[in-house]
């Protein structure tokens, strides 16, 4: 098998660094970008100075201010972040044609087969020196052109690359060449492994697992006994067996998207545009993966953290946003939640097939007939100009036109305005 290589580029404290870049007087001070504490705001990014106080992203702002009362809290400036992000992505695209932006500040590069192009000789020390030079040059170029620091990780799989990029943050370069994956992962503390959260870490530590190598040296049966399926998955991970999607048995079971609101939303008028956007997003990802799904699931959480799901199986599979949205809306209406404040809402499509066969409709409206063509054009625009270049009218917020990117912190426009301040998770 030909060597596969991936690079993971992750900007260091991106939003906070951009703020410091634009306002040098903030340099060295604890700076954070996030929502206001009174509005259930969370920290989107914290400068390294702020991190020494224990402030980190996704932490409630109120808690961050308790840890660091002198924290300089700034509202996000999405347009500016996006501008810089685009600049960075362009630099990456110059290096390699296969760039997959994962968010504004993160991207994955598929470098497979590009070794010679970048002057890397894999015969010499597995290409370690060559790839390191490449990664450092990339990091240097990003810094000279934007003034921002990135951490770069390289590895045989996307996951190893991502872990490597996180290994020596900030401004780190970590290259894990072919055959080194096992040793690299073996030395990682278990908390650094993907899929290991605080609870799992606690369970592992209680059983005497400290580093990944402790997992590697334990028989699969025993791990399964101790941790169930998660144990087996951990071993796969540690043995660097997980080749990021090239395994045919790693077929996706569902594609979903959910969002948590800064302030609970109430009523269909507020929720409908959100569902519309989620559906657009899910449909686009289905199309990107050449999948269609037959089962639509709606997930909704109330302010007491009670989570409800409702699903509907359609007779024919779809990858079209209007159909997903309409089903999701129907499920939502059937729940009779007009008066109930909603904290989180999500849409998932399952019952997936890779078959592209489309069942013809006897009584299709013109709009339905045109949909696949429209989808193709919209996808092309999104791929080229980003996910906000083009939005369905129904996806706009009821409170007004708001083109701030999905998943971003919006500047609040007064309490109860129903605007989004969302964090998002991808469930697959």
């Amino acid at each position: 098998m030909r060597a596969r290589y991936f690079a993971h580029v992750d900007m260091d404290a991106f939003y906070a660094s951009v703020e410091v870049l634009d306002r040098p007087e903030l340099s060295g001070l604890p700076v954070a970008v996030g929502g206001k504490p009174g509005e259930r705001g969370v920290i989107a990014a914290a400068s390294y100075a702020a991190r020494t106080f224990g402030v980190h992203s996704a932490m409630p702002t109120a808690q961050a201010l308790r840890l660091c009362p002198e924290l300089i809290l700034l509202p996000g400036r999405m347009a500016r972040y996006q501008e810089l992000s685009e600049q960075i992505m362009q630099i990456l695209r110059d290096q390699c044609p296969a760039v997959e932006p994962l968010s504004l500040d993160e991207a994955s590069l598929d470098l497979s087969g590009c070794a010679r192009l970048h002057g890397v000789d894999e015969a010499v020390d597995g290409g370690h020196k060559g790839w390191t030079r490449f990664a450092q040059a990339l990091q240097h170029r990003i810094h000279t052109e934007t003034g921002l620091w990135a951490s770069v990780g390289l590895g045989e799989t996307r996951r190893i690359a991502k872990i490597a990029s996180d290994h020596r943050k900030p401004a780190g370069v970590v290259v894990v060449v072919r055959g080194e994956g096992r040793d690299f992962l073996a030395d990682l503390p278990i908390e650094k492994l993907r899929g290991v959260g605080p609870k799992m870490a606690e369970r592992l530590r209680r059983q005497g697992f400290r580093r990944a190598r402790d997992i590697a040296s334990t028989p699969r049966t025993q791990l399964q006994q101790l941790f169930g399926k998660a144990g087996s998955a951990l071993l796969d991970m540690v043995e660097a067996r997980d080749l990021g999607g090239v395994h045919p048995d790693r077929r996706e079971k569902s594609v979903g998207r959910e969002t948590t609101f800064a302030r609970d939303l109430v009523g269909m008028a507020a929720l409908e545009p959100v569902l519309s956007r989620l559906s657009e997003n899910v449909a686009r990802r289905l199309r990107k993966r050449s999948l269609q799904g037959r089962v639509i699931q709606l997930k909704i959480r109330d302010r007491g953290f009670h989570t409800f799901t409702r699903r509907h199986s359609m007779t024919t599979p779809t990858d079209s946003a209007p159909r997903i949205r309409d089903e999701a809306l129907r499920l939502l209406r059937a729940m009779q939640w007009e008066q109930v404040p909603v904290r989180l809402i999500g849409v998932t499509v399952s019952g997936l097939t890779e078959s592209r066969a489309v069942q013809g409709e006897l009584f299709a409206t013109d709009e339905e007939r045109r949909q696949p063509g429209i989808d193709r054009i919209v996808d092309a625009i999104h791929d080229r100009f980003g996910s906000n270049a083009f939005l369905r009218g129904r996806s706009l917020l009821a409170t007004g036109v708001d083109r701030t990117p999905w998943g971003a912190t919006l500047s609040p426009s007064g309490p109860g305005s129903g605007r989004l301040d969302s964090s998002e998770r991808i469930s697959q």
Partner: protein
Amino acid sequence: MWLCPQWVSIGSLRLGMGSPVHPQRACLQREPHSRPKGQPVKIQVPQSDLARGLSAVANVVSNKTTLPILSTILFDAESDALTLAATDLDVSVVTHIYGAETGKTGRTAIPAAKFVPFIRTLGPDAVKLQCTNDKVKVGSGKARFEEATMDPANFPPLPKLTQDTSFEIEGAVLADMIRNTIYAISRDETRPALQGVFWELGADHFTMVATDGHRLTRTRRKLDLGVKNPRKLIASSAGLQQVLRLIDEAEKVTIYVGETQLSFEVGNTTVHTRLVEGSFPNYEQVIPKNNRNHIVCDRQTLADRVRRVKISADRVTNQIRFEFEGSVMNLTATGTEGSRAEDQLSVDYEGEPLVIGFNHNYVEDVLKHLESENIVIALDRADTAAIFVPAEGPIDDVTTSDDLCLLMPLRLND
């Protein structure tokens, strides 16, 4: 105050569900709270008559209903007949038993869940029913059964026969027409009009059409039903299911068509259903007129091939690929896990080579319901609807066939 507080709260909750309030449900809600006052009833019925009557009505009784009265069977004992009735508010079934001896006339509502199975197990001895105002006592030989009854005043008012339009039809013909269409209705609750069977009642013909938006079936009989004013309506499939269950093919069925209601008199039993509201799509418009390519094949052989090849088909799209070339029809199915199956059969075909995909479930439904030995598949292109008709009919213009099935293809993207 027994069932009332709880009943009202459940009732109003259901009423708040956004769907339009059902007229009968609304009238139920207005019922004043009242104590049960079943009347003292005394009757003696041959077991077989009672069991038959219960079988006729018990099918529409639901145990999961939020309105407890709907889990009962209404007994109305009059001097000349015992009438049983049950309803789920969409479909009501009423049957008469004439062999009963009524000691005391009156009405009561008996919960069906235990009463019906108990009566079915009884031997041939006559069944004696005795009701006080809140209890029924059953005796047959040495067997005894007791059950609390409900107030018959709460039972929804039963629909009356409307005399606007009525006609008689052979049970066998009606059953055949219902069977040929009902399988193709839509399961999509968002398209209620497609969940029913469309009827066209003309001066000299009776047509039924059903579609789920992907396939369509039309069955037409030239009958002189004596219908003066042609009518178009959508019959509820739940009602038709009940009729199909009760039909004795040797007997005639009388159908009463009202403004909002459709009733079927089948022997001693009457099925009432509401007409489905909404408009049925213009089905004639989607039957293609130009069908250049005609394939004639043996129905059973094709059904066997489909049953074999579908084993490998994708589980979500159910796609089978059909290739017609010369006198061969080739069937292929490819699943996502690398599974593949193929077979062929010989057919009469003279057109250009053609490849078309279909959902195998739809094809199997069609082959099950066209009852001729050979069938004709007529189609124009791989992306237009294909017509399936019995080969006995007019082959030159298949669209005039009395039994016609239309299948939209699965667009093949491989």
